[in-house]
């Protein structure tokens, strides 16, 4: 599966779905998003990795929900603050990414993407392919495949 870098190679303008994880604004290629919902009737899975919030019945399909905040090391997402699930199709079935808030769709010129700054390295740095600067803010571009890989 192509990550955003290789997409960037083939086409310059990518629509980024942006969302807040904690206070950080992150973005991912919108074509990877199957849907965004606010279903929160999750079933806890004891013994699952801590970033797995639970599993969800998405029209008959079992979807694992990952708290992106915990995964990226930005703190747990508050379930009472009306968070959203971004459902992404990955090779191992659909996975939901729990985020605090959904933001705009931004058209981004991938050639203007900058490498992740030094202070984004560390734990969470590995999950970003770069940073995109808009007029008034910075968007961390998420490496979705990396986030979904489960061998930590």
């Amino acid at each position, binding site marked *: 599966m192509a990550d955003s870098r290789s997409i960037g190679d083939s086409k310059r303008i990518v629509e980024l779905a942006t969302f807040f994880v904690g206070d950080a604004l992150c973005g991912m290629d919108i074509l990877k998003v199957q849907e965004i919902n606010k279903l929160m009737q999750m*079933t806890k*899975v004891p013994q699952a990795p801590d970033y797995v919030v639970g599993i969800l019945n998405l029209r008959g399909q*079992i979807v694992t929900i990952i708290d992106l905040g915990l995964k990226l090391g930005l703190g747990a997402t508050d379930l009472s603050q009306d968070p959203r699930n971004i459902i992404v199709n990955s090779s*191992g*079935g659909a996975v939901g990414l729990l985020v605090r808030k959904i933001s705009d769709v931004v058209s981004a010129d991938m050639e203007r993407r900058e490498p992740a700054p030094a202070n984004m390295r560390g734990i969470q740095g590995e999950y970003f392919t770069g940073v995109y600067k808009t007029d008034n803010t910075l968007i961390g571009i998420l490496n979705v495949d990396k986030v979904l890989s489960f061998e930590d």
Partner: protein
Amino acid sequence: MEIEDDEILQGFIEESLEHLADIENDLLAIEERGADIDEDLVNKVFRAAHSIKGGAGFMGLTTIQELSHATENVLGLIRSKKLIPTPEIINVLLIASDQLQSMIEDVHNSNEVDISAHLVPLNAIADGTYSQSAVDAPQRAAKAAPPPEPPAPAKAPASVESKPVPLAETPAPPEPPATQAESIVEAEADAEDDDIEANGDNIEDDSTDANDFTAPARGGSRSKTAGPPAKTETTLRVHVSLLDSLMNLAGELVLSRNQLLQTIGSDDLRNAEAVGQRIDLITSELQEAIMLTRMQPIGNVFSKFPRVVRDLAKKLGKTIDLTIVGKDVELDKTIIEAINDPLTHLVRNSVDHGIEKPADRKRIGKSEIGLVVLKAYHEAGQVVIEISDDGKGLDGEALAASAVSKGLLSPEQAQVMSDKEKINLIFLPGFSTAKEVTDVSGRGVGMDVVKTNLDQLGGHVDIISTKGAGTTISIKLPLTLAIIPCQIIETGGERYAIPQVNLEELLRIPAAQVQNRVERVGDAEVVRLRGTLLPLIRLADVIGIERTYYDLNNEEVKPDRRENTADRRSKESPLFRSQNEQDKRQGGRNDHPPRSVLDRRNSASSALNIVVVSTGAMKYGLIVDRLLDSEEIVIKPLGRHLQQCKGYAGATIMGDGRIALILDVANLARMARLTSLDGSDRASEVAKAEADALRAQKDRQSLLIFKSSETEHFAVPLNQVERIEKISRNDIEDLGGKRVMKYRGGSLSLMCIDDMASVKPLADHDNLLVIVFNIAKRAVGLLAIGPIDAIEVNADIDDVTLSQPGIMGSIIIDQHTTMLVNVYEMAQALYPQWFVEREKVVFEPEGDVKAPTILIAEDSKFFRNQVKGYMTEVGYDVVEAEDGVEAWDKLHEYGDQITMLVTDIEMPNMNGFDLTQRIRQDEKFGKLPIIALTTLASAEDVARGQAVGVNEYHIKLDKERLMVSVHDYVKRRH
């Protein structure tokens, strides 16, 4: 090599493989008929070979064409009856068809395969120059140089599997991923068997016998052999009629959907209901129909066994008759695919190790032809597959000994195992390395793998084996894996599903019994279930969530703070717990508001809900918060992020749309580090602990505790009590100075303790209890008030302080002095007329004959005095002894004077069993009647007593029965 049209090629491959599958069985049939040639059959095989040849020529697959052409030639000769199909010829044809199959499965490389090893004998047969020796040489040569075709990777797993085989090839590089390798392995594994056959010196060599024996079985377990549908197929044939009915159902579903949408728009509730029912019906039918498409006859797997058995039997020099029953039984496709390996393994084991060599069979009077029966049938919604042979069977003792010598089992464990458990030892991982077991019983190679595979399918393996007469292995399998009935349970507020195949029973231990039935051994909990000890696992602990319990009163889930279930904070019954103690305990829980007076441990909420599950040979109890319904559920896989959670087999969606996880009971046990051996470890530990406890506490007496007045506590031996009735005071009638009540169509005489003993009068309650005893063959009731309870106490009875008429002594129970009521004495005093008749019988000793002398051996003074009392009362002389040693001495001292011995079992220095044994072995006293007295006559004790020579067993304080048998023996003696 370039092949242009992939689709046509694919068609050719599929068609050819089908032909080959038929060829194999047909060739075997031809072989069986020998000279009596069935033309139709030969024609069929001929045509099959011909079509393969034609197709291969068209596709440019020259090697395949060449080989099929040579095959066709030979078949042509057989068809025209110019050649009689001897087993040798058929063998050559079979090997050739195997080669064809392996080439077709890998068409792209088929042209590079060297087939001269097959062509030479085939052409020799066709030319009439064929002889056995002629074929042997080229075959061997061919095998020595392994076919240069792709199976390079396949060779590796095959060889790795069969380590012990001294094969020509050395194991090739590391094992490739199993799934990939498997599909390639299949034909190759067969070729490997042929290798062994060709390298005849290996198999015939006795020095490597053991290794060889296991080798084919091992290799076979992985190999998929020539069976057609053995590999994972991507396409499936479905009957058109089935497809039509599916289409119909789909159409109906669409119609119903439209109706539903309309109804939702309107407010017509009744119509909505109707539509709902319709959809329900259609869905069920659709589900059934779709399941049918997945069903395949088990014959698909069975069909390859004639060849497997034939080849193996031939190689081993055995004659074996294979009977296959129930080919048409259908199973889900996935199951059919998955049982292939285990079944092959089991069949090979039967042939290889089960059936004896013809010579051996003849010697023990069996027919030289061994029987192997493969049978499939439906039973109780499951499919049962049986593989039975009339071979030598399994020797449980030898297996146990072998397991002990391998350190898998301690000798103590082996001792307590049943025969069945011993036989099941062959499923233990690491149980066997080929040689030992082949020597011992010939089985057990990789049986753990077989079992694991079947467990994964939700199957169940059972072995029935009679040494010398044969073995039957039966496998129970679910019809399908997609939809399974499950028991739904709840723990920690979440629901979980337990597959019903794993479910043995549901057990609820009422709060009041928890303390008695659940015990701790080390850090493990066990529960008593019908005489066995069942290890317990708390689901919450295993999956690492907070322990909770379900409060029935307000239907809430609350955290559970108890440390363990077998809470021994107080051994005594909750009914007798002092108020102080409760207050103390509540005071200690500052974080909690004061609770109701009753501790939760005694309320219904603290009853234990246990799901007894079994997985293979292991059985354990899973403690859960609540037991809910049983439901049919659809298994859905968990995402890969959750693959590491071993406790779940998947998830399912419940009626309310939420998800429930499906528990994998085998893995839960593993996670709780509970193996079946651990289980028996614990069981034997518990048994030992119990025996120790019994020894330490020796005379335990079960007592029924009750009150008569509010302040005084009384007890009677529980074994004297017939039943307890609740009555109202109005039921009591005072007639002729006696109290009676109507009871079971007659009058029951009633007594009060204060009738005889100087105790406080019966409390003035409206609700009374009547404890019914059976004395002198009559029922008599003792009036009492509650609360009553049955407890077990050490018989530390004081027979002096409070002893008085009607009271035989006292004992401290729960800090209360409790008086033991002598019901017998009371009845005798109050209703002397009942005893007149009996007393006469007793006073028999005539004139000059000396009264019989009874030797009483009993360490507890109380019981000794009691028994002595019974004896002297009727005129017998008594000699007392405090233990077995003293009794032995007294016996010698008094010699012939002693008429009989009444002995306790638990005594210091020498116990009753040892004493009895000693007496029985003594010449002089060997025939002395011995009556054993015990407080708890367990079945084992009775059996042991009888084994050492006790004549009769009686319960202490059961005066009546004891005396009857004493009289009996005394009379016999005189």
